Each structure stands twice: as C-alpha cells, then as structure tokens.
C-alpha cells in the first residue's frame, strides 16, 4: 500500500467507526446527475448565495449599523464635515480606507443581483419544463418562499448603508406599512422605533439581514437540496430516458469536478464584475435626508416591478366613516403581489386540478408540448416586464427622448392588455412548433437541397430523423381533456356544478395539442409513401 492509500484508508476508517458512513458514502459518490446547461441555473443561485455569505461576513467586520449622527472626516473630500449616520460613514470607510473593501462591497452587491437573476431564470426553467409536478410541489413552494425572502433580503441589504437612494426606498416601504388598515401607523412606529426615520431602523434590519433571513434561507435551501437529492433530479425526454430511471454522470469524479469547478467560475465572474463595474456608488448619492431626493431614483431590479406597479396605480383613496384607505398604495404594493405570489406557490395544485393528472412525473416537458402552461408563463413574464419597464420610466424618458406621461399610459394599458395578448401569441407559437415537430417526424428534416427528378419535377430532399431524435420528439404524453358530464345517465345533475364546468373548460384549453404522429401513420410511411 502506498503512503497515500494508507492515509486515505486511515481517515476513512476513523470516520466510519464513528458514523457508519461507508454505505451512505458509496451510494452518494455513485449518485447520477443528468447533464444539461439549464440544470446549472440552480447551481448559479446556490453559489451566489455562498459568495454572499462570504463577502457579507467580510463586510460585517467593519460596518457599524448605527444611526447615530457623526461628522465625516475621511478620505472622500466632498463629504468632509457633512453630518451623516455612523452606518453611512462606516460604509464610506469600507469603500475608501479598507484595502479590498470597495471590491468586497461590489462583489457582494453584484452577487446579490446575479443571485436574484439566476433565481428567476431557474424558476422559469422549472416552470416551463413542468419540473414542479408531483412529487416536487413542495420544492416549488420552498422555491417561491426563497424568492420572496431573497427580494426582502436584497432590499434590506442595500438599505443598510443609509444613503439617499436607498433611504428613499425605505421611506416608500414605510408608506406602505403606514397605509395598512387599522394597524398601519402602529406597525410603522414599532418598526422604526417612533416617527420616520427614527434612530433604530438600520440596526434592526441589520439583525434581520445578517442573521434572521440568511438563517431561514439556509434552512430552506438545505431542505430544497435534500429534496432534489432524495427525489433525484428530473431529466429531459430522450432515448434511454424513462420515468423510472436517471441517466447522467456519477457524482465522483465527473460531477464533483464540474459542479465544484462551476462554483469557482461563478465566483470568478462575480469578482470580475466587482473589479470592473462600479455598482451602488454611495459616495455620490450622499447620506439620507428626508428633505432631499434625486431624479431617476429606482430600487434594485428585483423590486423594480413593484415600483412600476405603484407608479401605474390610479389615484384611488377612500375616505369614509373617519378612516382613510389608500387603495393606490395597498393594491399595487400588497394586494397584487400577494395574489401573484400565492397563485405562483399553488400553481402545481392548480394545474393538477385543471388536468386531473395526479401521477408522478420525472421526465420534463419540452415547453412547446404544453402550450397552455407555457402561455401562462409568458403571460406572467409579460406582466412583470411591463411593470419593470414602468419602474424605470423616467430613465427611459431621459435616454430615449420620450415623455414619462406617455410611458405611464402605455404601462397602465399594457399591464392589462399585453398579458392576454402574450398568452394567445405564445400558445399559437407552441402549437405551430408542435406541428413542425410532427412534420419532421413524419417527413424528415428539410435539407435545403433541391433535386430534379427525371420527369422534370423539383423536390427538396428530406433527411429522415435518426431514431433517437424521432423518439425525443414523440416521447411526450398527450393527455385527453377531462370528461366532466353535466348529468349522469339517470339525469342526476353533477354535484360539482359550476366548478365542474369551469374545470372541464380549463382542462380542454390546457390539453389543446397537435396530435403526435400515430403508430399507424408511421407504419404507412415506412410502407410505401416515399
């Protein structure tokens, strides 16, 4: 035995005698992971989270979360002698006086932007491929919870330096809290420790931002990963891939190297952004002062859609019986996001109700093969995009020579008119793609080569698909719509009633498909068509 083998053997023995880990490790190291780039989006999220933890811990060594008023005396000349909170002053100190401080601040913020961006794209991948179906509905709900927590965490994070831009965002958050019926002003006074801005807010959100939310997120991420691990990852349809297997590469050595390497790549790209692209230059914004404001004030992009909704809201406020309810704040700020996130969380069950499909699914859908779901996804993306665009309407106006009033009206109408349009267009596109697939399976791939036949006719040569490719295009299921009859054979009305009718309608819409080529058609082809 070589020295290396002896050491390795000794270590393994030490651990196994205390934990009995040998059996589990063997199973783990040979665990199979399917390989597709779209499966790496969740990894980007996870690695960004680790980067946030590491860079964030670095920042906590110097950040002072106190709103105590100090007079700045430091390296940045234009702020010398200006009164500001200790939090802002310490953030300036980190940026200018700590070597690598500005780099770490920027890496932290870029990592947060990439974290949220990758989370959204990952969520879209899971949605459009139907990976949330049984048995993964719980994981989907955990994911929605992580998305919500991520948005809150990011908002609190960039508000910590207490600069003019983020302070304005806090003012707006306070207005939303204050607008809550009955308890609003009480909640606001409790959260801020008195009138806005008070002296307690930064230290309170500091505890939430570095301890509470990361702790909850860590627990949820662990649960999320454990479920993926235990339930095994899904896979795209293809030759050799069924509902009962997983085809891919083993954890050791391939996946370890690729996934581990990818962590360093994500970290490297984030560090690159932190090095070459300035982000959140708080020294230009100045310390927060409720009497000051800058044109073109926006929150970070993952809150931008909320800002856009608030901007587009009609000015409705009701005054009755001595109380005021600000619908213009509550509807875009709390009610609509609440509805959207609740629907999002329960979508797997809504889809189950619509289709009646309660079986386990481990093979993914190609988005075109579920036109209804893809169209619903496109619809919600369109809504979010219009809201996001409206959130930046003043910047669009300045840079593209437009009027904010026009952009606002476009958004107000667009928020309602464009999503259904996107739904219809996307569904039609999916159905056309299905038709194209069908043609490809039946008649082969168009090669673009023209051949003249002896009797003068020109034909285009079609290359028949390989059996693997053809299988991949036809492996999907095409479920029939639910049959919910109005009354049974004895004339007794269906107790489901309207709910049943609605369900039948939705099921019919959701199962709209272009028929796959049937076995009969395939046989006909082979027999003599060509």
């Amino acid at each position: 035995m070589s020295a290396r083998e002896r050491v390795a053997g000794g270590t393994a023995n030490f651990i196994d005698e205390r934990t009995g880990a040998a059996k589990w490790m063997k199973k783990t190291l040979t665990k199979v992971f399917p390989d597709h780039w779209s499966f790496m989006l969740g990894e980007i999220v996870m690695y960004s989270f680790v980067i946030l933890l590491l860079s964030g811990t670095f920042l906590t060594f110097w950040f002072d979360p106190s709103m105590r008023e100090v007079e700045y005396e430091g390296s940045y000349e234009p702020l010398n002698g200006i009164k500001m909170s200790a939090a802002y002053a310490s953030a300036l100190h980190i940026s200018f006086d700590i070597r690598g401080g500005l780099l770490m601040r920027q890496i932290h913020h870029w990592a947060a932007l990439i974290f949220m961006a990758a989370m959204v794209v990952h969520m879209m991948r899971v949605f459009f491929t139907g990976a949330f179906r049984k048995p993964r509905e719980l994981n989907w709900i955990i994911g929605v919870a992580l998305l919500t927590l991520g948005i809150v965490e990011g908002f609190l994070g960039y508000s910590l330096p207490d600069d003019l831009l983020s302070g304005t965002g806090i003012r707006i958050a306070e207005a939303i809290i204050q607008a809550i019926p009955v308890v609003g002003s009480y909640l606001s006074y409790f959260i801020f420790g008195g009138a806005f801005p008070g002296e307690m807010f930064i230290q309170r959100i500091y505890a939430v931002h570095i301890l509470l939310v990361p702790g909850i997120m860590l627990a949820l991420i662990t649960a999320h990963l454990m479920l993926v691990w235990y339930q095994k990852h899904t896979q795209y349809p293809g030759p050799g891939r069924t509902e009962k297997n997983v085809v891919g590469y083993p954890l050791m050595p391939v996946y370890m190297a690729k996934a581990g390497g990818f962590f360093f790549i994500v970290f490297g790209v984030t560090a690159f952004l932190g090095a070459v692209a300035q982000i959140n230059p708080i020294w230009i914004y100045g310390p927060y002062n409720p009497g000051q404001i800058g044109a073109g004030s926006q929150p970070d992009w993952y809150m931008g859609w909320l800002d856009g909704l608030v901007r587009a809201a009609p000015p409705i406020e009701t005054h009755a019986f001595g109380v005021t309810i600000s619908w213009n704040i509550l509807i875009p700020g709390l009610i609509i996001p609440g509805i959207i996130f609740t629907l999002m969380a329960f979508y797997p069950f809504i889809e189950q109700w619509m289709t009646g499909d309660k079986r386990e699914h481990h093979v993914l859908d190609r988005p075109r093969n579920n036109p209804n779901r893809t169209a619903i996804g496109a619809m919600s993306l369109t809504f979010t995009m219009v809201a996001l665009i409206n959130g930046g309407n003043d910047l669009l106006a300045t840079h593209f020579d437009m009027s904010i009033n026009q952009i606002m009206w476009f958004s107000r109408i667009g928020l309602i008119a464009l999503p259904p349009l996107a739904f219809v267009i996307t569904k039609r596109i999916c159905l056309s793609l299905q038709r194209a697939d069908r043609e490809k399976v039946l008649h082969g791939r168009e090669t673009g080569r023209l051949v003249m036949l002896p009797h003068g006719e020109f034909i285009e040569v079609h290359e028949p698909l390989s059996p693997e490719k053809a299988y991949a295009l036809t492996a999907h299921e095409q479920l029939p719509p639910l049959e919910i009859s109005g009354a049974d054979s004895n004339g007794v009305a269906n107790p489901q009633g309207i709910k049943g009718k609605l369900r039948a309608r939705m099921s019919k819409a959701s199962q709209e498909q272009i028929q796959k080529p049937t076995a009969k058609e395939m046989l006909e082809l082979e027999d003599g068509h060509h």
Partner: protein
Amino acid sequence: MSEINMESNKEIAPLEDPGLPEHVHRKTDVDPLAAKKAERQVSILFSLSAVGTILFVYSYVWIPDDTLIFLPIFGTTNAHQLLLGLGLAMALFFIGMGAVHWAKTLMPDHEVVDYRKEQRSNNEDREAFVATVKDGAGQAGLGRRPLIKRTLALALGLVGVSPILLLRDLGPLPENDLNETNWKAGTRLVTDPGDRPIRPSDLEVGGVAQVQPEFPAGKVRHLDDIAQDSVLLIRIRPEEFNLDAERLSWTYEGIIAFSKICSHMGCAVALYEQTTKHLLCPCHQSTFDVTRAAKVIFGPAARPLPQLAITVDSEGYLVAKAPFNEAVGPSFWGRDSQ
C-alpha cells in the same frame, strides 16, 4: 369521473425507445497525444489561477491604494482596486475552468443509468406507520383525558402571548404624532440649508426656496423633523392663481407654500417646472398643479399637497399663519378625511 380515463384513450406510442445512443469516443479517449494536449491545457489553466493570486498579492502589497490610471471605457480609475479585483477574479475563475476542462476531456464520460423507485412507501410500511401512530396516541391517552387536553390547550395558547407582549416597547404609540409638525402660528420660514429668514422680496417670480421652520436656539433639527417639516416656497404672479378665497388668503403676494413631503408615499416633491407651474414627484411621477393648491393632475397620488398658510411678521419676514390644517405625508388609517 374526473380522473384521466386511460382505458379509452390509450397512449399513442408511435416509436419504440431506441435506448441509450452509442457512446462516441472523444479525441482524448483514442489519441494519447490529444490526451496529453488536454492535460497541458488543464495545467495552463490552473497556472493562470496562480498568476491571478500573485497579481492580487502584488496589488495589495506594492501598489499604493491611491494610484490612478487612465483606461479606455473606464476613464480614470483606481489601479490598486482594479488589479486587486482582476487578480482575485483570475485566481478563482481559472481554477474552475481547469476543473471543468479536466472533467470534460479526461474524466470518463460514459453515461450511467440509475433507477428510481416510487416515492410512495409500500402498503406494509404505511400500515405499520399508521399502527405506530395510533398506538402512541392511544398511550398518551388524550382522548380519554379531556381535562388534560383542555388545560394543555389553555397553557399553550397563553404562553404565546408573552413574546408578543415583549415587543410592545419596540416603539412608542403614534398617538397624535402623525397629525403634528413643528409649524405653529408665527414660526418663521428659514432657508434649507443656511437657516436664514426670508423676506418676500428675496424670492423672484418663477423662483423656489427650500424651507424649514425656524428652531429656537438650542433646539437641534433632526431627520425626524425634516421628514415632516420640509416646505417648498414658490412664487408666481398673483393673477395666475386659481384658488378659492380661503386658500388665496393663505398665500402672500404670489408666494405659496406647500409641504414638500409627497402625499403619496413621502418622497421630497421639489421638482418645480417654472413654465407649467407643476410640481413633479420623481418617485412615482405624481404631478401637482401649483396654481390650484397642488391639486393632483397625474400619477398615483390621491391627495393634493397640504398648503401652509403664510404671511409676514412685523419685521417683514415670512412666517406661518397657522399650523398645517391636515396631516402631512402619506395617508394612514386614522387620517382626517378631506
């Protein structure tokens, strides 16, 4: 009836699963020279990472942290920071690239198949579980001992009250705070910043002034005060006003004062368009018409900005005639309706 009817709609399976495709060998699997080349490439990548770390250490130790350098696209930037960051990025990135290239070219790439079992436990296990739970519950005997059950519920319900009560001292109760500001009858208007009192002649037609209430000597102005007291002073020609008699009496020779705190969500509304006499809040684009007492003409704000009644005192400086007649800032449940 509402389940999928699999019988009459047999799945259409036009094609047999051809099974996993043939394994295609990579160049590095068949050609030892190609394998050596890949090995060299991986080593170069790992070495680049080392170079990155060296660059990082060099920048940290030997480049003074106020060194500036001019680069295209960047403009003038701090060389120390840039090289520190690029060094770190290189160090991390190339470890990753090396590992991935190694896995792609040299590690085995045979696809492996693993098998799934149904997530659902088998029926025996399920029955055993149900039996265990029933047994355990029976042993606890809650069903037979209602007094225990009820008092347990009482205790658990009450203990939750303590932590909630502990949060009471998070902050004071708002009471009438939201309805009050530091503006009283006779309070002088002073410039912000500068704290200089203002005469009507100081303000030209078409001009604005950022204003705060004068604080007595010794009293310090805090951000809390600014968040409710900030006022915008605007001067237009008196004939341009479109106000009722009462509101007109709150102006002075074409000078009108509004709370700067937006009635929508509290941002500072200070963007004044001299030509249109409109105030624009940059947060959500609510637009207010100064000639009509800051009436909302566009955007999500539902209420006009509160107007401060002003006049001049015996020395000719502008003073408030009375406190605001309504609460400033965003709305809240108990706000006096208008």
